[in-house]
């Protein structure tokens, strides 16, 4: 495996920065496709449903971003669309199980973040 990495590195150093970036993005895409049974849409919907059920009916999930690592997650923006538009905070969703990574205090925190966002004291 080490040898494989060295061979890949030899190829990578010959690429332009843009080409390297494209290759890395493609590798990340392959990881998502092969190892995450939970897709972005499912993650977003889980967050939207939780927000409306537990925080407020004027909030919804935005377009998730995949965060790789030992425990890959979908990082889902919490979107505010009334009073002021934008992302107030984020909620992570386990990319393997689809579980929302929240605690019993998350709803309070999200509401605080939303209020702060609307008041204009934060910008995400």
């Amino acid at each position, binding site marked *: 495996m080490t040898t494989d990495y060295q061979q890949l590195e030899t190829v990578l150093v010959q690429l332009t920065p843009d080409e390297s970036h494209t290759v890395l993005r493609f590798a990340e895409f392959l990881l998502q496709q092969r190892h995450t049974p939970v897709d972005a849409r499912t993650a977003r*919907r889980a967050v*939207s*449903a939780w927000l*409306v*059920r*537990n*925080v*407020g*009916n*004027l*909030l*919804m999930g935005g377009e998730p971003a995949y965060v790789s690592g030992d425990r890959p997650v979908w990082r889902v923006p919490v979107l*505010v*669309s*009334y*009073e*002021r538009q934008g992302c107030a905070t984020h909620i992570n969703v386990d990319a393997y199980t689809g579980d929302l990574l929240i605690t019993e205090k998350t709803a309070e925190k999200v*509401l605080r973040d*939303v*209020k702060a*966002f*609307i008041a204009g004291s934060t910008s995400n």
Partner: protein
Amino acid sequence: MALAYCDILETQAIIASQIGHIAGAGTPARNIVRLAALGVKVVWHESGSIEDLQQALTDYAIPVVFLRTGELPYWDYDTPHVVVVVGIEAETVYVNDPAFTQAPLLVPLGDFQLAWDEFGGQWATLQCCE
């Protein structure tokens, strides 16, 4: 809209206060049951199906549905929203949307289901008290 059907003519401010509305965030959807204090029977549903909505209409209840407008063809803005379902046919759902004066509005069944699924199929029924 649904309250007016039951001859309950409270102001938006009173209704907002009753359900614990917070500017910009709204209120947890199940807080809709607090409207019972205004004189209607309210039942909250964690999830539902088109058949559930049809049954509610058959029972003369008013189905109130939480959905995402981005999937509704007559909206050009993507936001969480609430509509009243007033009829269902094979491939069409008829809704009264408080954001529009025209009523009812026709929504293709598939679009309606996508919009509703965004929030896990949460809905409520209101019934006027005798």
